[in-house]
Structures are given as C-alpha cells and as structure tokens.
C-alpha cells in the first residue's frame, strides 16, 4: 500500500514536470521541435497500448497499424469541414451519411477509439484462440486487409488518394493529455484484478484457466483496450499531420511500435514511456543518416534506409543481449507471485 502511495507521488511529480516542460516548450521551441514532442506523446500512447496486448497479456499481436488506420480515418472524415470533403472526394462523392458531418475533436477522437475497439473485438474474437506466431500472422493479415480495403473504398476513404486538409487540432496538450490518460488507465488496469488476470494468462494459460480465469473474455478485453488507444493515437496522428493515405499504415509502423515496446521492456509501463520518447527523438535525430550533409568543404553522402538498418540492429541486439535479463525478470516475477 505504501509502495503504491510513493509511486503515486512520483507519478504526480512526473506529471507536474511534464506540464511545466510543455508550457516552456510551447513558448520557446520552434514548430519542428513541437512536432517531435507531439509525436513522442502519440508514441507513448501507442507503445502502452501495444504493451497492454503484447507485454501484459502475452498475446503477440502485430495489428497495430491497422487499428491506427481506422482511428486516423475516423478522425479525418469526422472532423473535416464539409467543403474540404467535396474537394477531397473528386473522383467519387463521399457516402451521403458522412457528407455533412463535422464533429469536434474530442468526440471524433472518442469515436476513433470506439470504432477501433469494436473492430478489434470483431477481429479479435475469432483469432485470439491462436497461439503466438499464428496470432502474429493473423493480426498482421488483418492490418493488411484493413489497408487494402481502405485503398479500395473510394467513396468512404477516398482510396489511394488519401485525405488532405484534416484540421490540425492536435497540439502538445492533446497528445500528452491522451498519453497521460493512457498511462493512468493502463496502470489502473494492471493494478486491479483484470491486470492480474492478464498477467496470469501471459505466464501460463492452462494454469490461469484452471484458476477460473475466463481466457476468452480477458483476451478480448485486453485486445479491445489496446485497439481503442491505438485508434485514438491514430486519430491524433491524422490531426497532427493533416494528410493521411492508406500506405502510411504499413507494417513498418507496427515495427516502430514493437521496437519501443521491446526497448522499454515487455510488461513495463515506465520503460515504455521512456523508450517511446527516446525512439521518437532518435528517429528524428538520426535522420541525417538518410540525407546528405554539406559541410561546405566536403559533402557526406547520406544513404536512405540507413536509419532503419540501425534500428533493426538495435532491436536484434536488444533481444539477443537482453535475453538473460528477460529470463531473470520472468523468474523474479514467479517468486514474487509465490510469496504473495
């Protein structure tokens, strides 16, 4: 109990620091840096939502890009002004029931999360019976199907042309506000009985089932929460960028989030938050690797793709070098369960 109190105080302190930091950042930093701060917040949400599914419940899902796409399109279509819609949908007019809607940002974000969660349940219910690698492929497949469907439904999503001119509501308060809601929600969930059930499923499905945990219910629940936040984060991203198209939501995006989750530690909240920020900043900071730098007297040629090579190597090294750590951590957890 006392430990919880202390971590609550630490969380409040961190929250205060971030609020002060954001106020200062908004006053003194340029647009580019603000954009990186926004992206960090969005990736915190994404990392935590994936960690809830993959890290805490132990289901290896690779469908995040798909749920983000759903969220992004929901927000894009719902918040876009009516005239803008007419300009966007010049090949085929938009379906009538969406033509005249123009929602505020908050309801649109919630709608994005809900649509993603409902689709998460519809998709998840049949495939969550599968184990590790089959589930990974099936969810990857769903993400890919969502992308293909979005490319082809011209009158709903404007197809391959994508949506342009989505109003830029996302600012640092929105992105980090959502991030903090996610942090709070996930830690709340994990501390409670649901979280215990999730982790029991991760450790041993058969034992969890024997203890009377409803596997299906908890798996679907974890999946639905995860996709809800993925959808909201996708919505924030759409509103931050202003332009979206189906090809943004390829598996590369899921890979970035997976990188964050693995670096931060499967089943770790603080680690995920920190690694989300680090990875986002590094992605930008290492951009020079992809571009040529002109130092005046000599030009260093950048190689496109170098950045991702480095990130892939980091991921593999993390897994190979850190495997002792993984094992130890799991073992440590087992003993602590026994003591409880």
């Amino acid at each position: 109990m006392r430990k919880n109190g202390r971590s609550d105080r630490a969380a409040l302190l961190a929250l205060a620091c971030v609020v002060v930091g954001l106020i200062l950042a908004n006053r003194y930093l340029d647009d580019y840096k603000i954009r990186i701060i926004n992206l960090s917040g969005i990736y915190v949400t994404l990392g935590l939502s994936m960690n809830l599914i993959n890290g805490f419940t132990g289901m290896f899902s690779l469908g995040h890009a798909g749920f983000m796409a759903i969220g992004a399109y929901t927000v894009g279509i719902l918040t876009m002004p009516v005239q803008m819609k007419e300009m966007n949908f010049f090949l085929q007019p938009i379906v009538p029931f969406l033509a005249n809607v123009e929602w505020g940002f908050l309801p649109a974000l919630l709608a994005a999360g809900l649509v993603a969660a409902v689709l998460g349940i519809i998709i998840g219910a049949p495939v969550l019976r599968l184990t590790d690698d089959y589930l990974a492929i099936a969810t990857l497949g769903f993400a890919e199907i969502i992308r293909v469907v979005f490319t082809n439904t011209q009158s709903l999503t404007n197809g391959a042309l994508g949506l342009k001119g989505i109003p830029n509501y996302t600012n640092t308060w929105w992105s980090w506000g959502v991030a903090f809601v996610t942090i709070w929600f996930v830690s709340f969930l994990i501390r409670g009985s649901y979280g215990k059930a999730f982790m029991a499923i991760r450790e041993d499905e058969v034992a969890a089932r024997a203890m009377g945990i409803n596997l299906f219910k908890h798996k679907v629940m974890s999946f639905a929460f995860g996709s809800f936040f993925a959808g909201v984060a996708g919505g924030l991203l759409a509103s931050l960028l202003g332009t979206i198209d189906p090809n943004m939501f390829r598996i590369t995006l899921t890979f970035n989030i997976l990188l964050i989750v693995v670096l931060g530690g499967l089943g770790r909240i603080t680690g995920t938050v920190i690694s989300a920020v680090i990875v986002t900043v590094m992605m930008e900071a290492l951009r020079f690797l992809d571009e040529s730098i002109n130092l005046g007297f000599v030009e260093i040629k950048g190689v496109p793709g170098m950045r991702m090579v480095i990130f892939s190597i980091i991921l593999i090294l993390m897994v190979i070098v850190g495997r002792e750590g993984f094992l130890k951590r799991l073992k440590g957890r087992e003993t602590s369960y026994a003591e409880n």
Partner: protein
Amino acid sequence: MGNLSMFLQHLTNGISLGSLYALIAIGYTMVYGILRLINFAHGDIFMLGVYLTYFGILYTSIPWWLVFVIAPAITGIIGLFLEKVCYKPLRDSPRITILISAIGASFLLQNLGIVLFGGRPRAFPVPRVLNHVVKVRGVSINVITFIIPVVTILLLVGLTYFITKTKTGMAMRALSRDYETASLMGIDINKIISITFFMGSLLAAVGGIMWGARYPQLMPLMGMMPGLKSFIAAVVGGIGNIAGAVAGGFILGLGEIMLVALLPRLTGYRDAFAFVVLIIILLVKPSGLMGQRETEKV
C-alpha cells in the same frame, strides 16, 4: 472457344504463381517443422536471391545459367548465416523473443537492401531463351510460365528423395518429431538446422529467380508480400508438412489469379485474398489441410 482459351491462360498463370508460392513455402515449413519458428526473414532471403542473380548477370562475366546455380547457393549460405546470428543464441528463449528477433532480421535485410541496392525498382535481365511467347492453340503463353512448374516439380522430387531416403533427411525428420530425443541419439542438431536453413533459402532463391523472370521488377521490399503469402500457403497446407506447403501454394496461386480473372471488380482486393483464406483456415481447421498427422512433419 475464346472463353476456354482465356481460361487456360489463367490456369497456366495460376499454376506458375502457385509453384512459386510453393517453393518459398517449403522453406517456411521446413524451418517451422524443426525449430517451431516462423522465419519472418524468409521473404527477404528470397529478395536477396533475386538481387544476387541480377548483379551476377549484369556485373560479372559468368554465363547466366551458371549464375542461376551460384546465386541460390550464396543465398543459402546467407540464410545459414542468418540463423547463426539471429536465431541460434535464442534457441532456449521464449518463443516471443525469437519471433521479435525474426522480425528484426526481416527489417534489417529489407533496409540493408534499400541501402545497398537503392530504393528504385530495377529491371530483371531475363535471358532471351526464357522470355519469348509461344502460341498453343490460340493461347499465348510465355515460355517461363511452363518452365516454372517443371523446375518446381523437379526440385520437389529431389527434395522428397533427400528427406525420405538420405541419412540427413532422416535426421531432419527425427528432429521435427522430437527435438530432445533426437539430440540424445547423437544427431548433430546445429548441423541439421544449418542444412535446413541452407536448403530453405536455396529453394527461396530459385523461386526468386523464376519470380524475377516472370515479374521482372526488382525492389528491396519485393520479398514481403510473396513471403507472407507463401507463409500463408504453408499454414493452409498444414505447417511442417512439405506436401501441404505445395498444395497450399497452388491453392493460393490459382485462387488469386482466378479471383482477378473471374471477378474483375475485386482486382483491388487481390492482396487481401490470401489473408482471408488464412483466417478462414485458422478458424475452420487450424492444423491446416494436411496437418493432422504429426508423423509427416519435416
């Protein structure tokens, strides 16, 4: 008559695409049979095979038919090396860890491809012998469309012989049946796994060369879709089962071509077809079409 010849044309196209999926699927299924690991990087190994052939033909004086032999061999060695670096250290780790490593390896190869070969598409230099159209009773077919199934069948016969008749093949079957017992019986696990990866990658590269001859556009990310679809083919047929992988490959290849041919309105959904099949199979018969008999695993 026109309809019939159209149909035959689609049929041959489907069979040749199916053969390619089958060749790549075998690599997945062999590795899965022994290590219970989805080698996510398999599709990218396939891509490397195509690029090696491309560079071999254009930048060396080696005749093209020799390149068609050397490039798969080199690709096989790369596959073997990949296992040593990315999978071997994790052999006793939880499966999720190896899976992450496999995904990392896949992205590493893709991005190395972009760095080394450039992101722009390249045109595969198809030897003229393989690239002319013959007309058979009004059906015009590219020679390569015939060659692909023939090569596939020859390789399959060779592989089946290898697995059922040789000592190494027997060791592979033993390993896939019971890993620990097999190792107690004096089977050199590391050697057998290396051979498995070598052969899987070699077959993927052969598939890749024929893919390049059939669809002559090379891109560093070209391995992803065929890789995923072939994996699905392996699952549809029953993963770990070579005959199943071949059957799955043909089902997917024919299905995809026929879908586009018979329902042109759904052309845009072509890439989703395989995934829909996968999900149906996983729900109806998770062990795949031929996966019920454990004994046939390789």
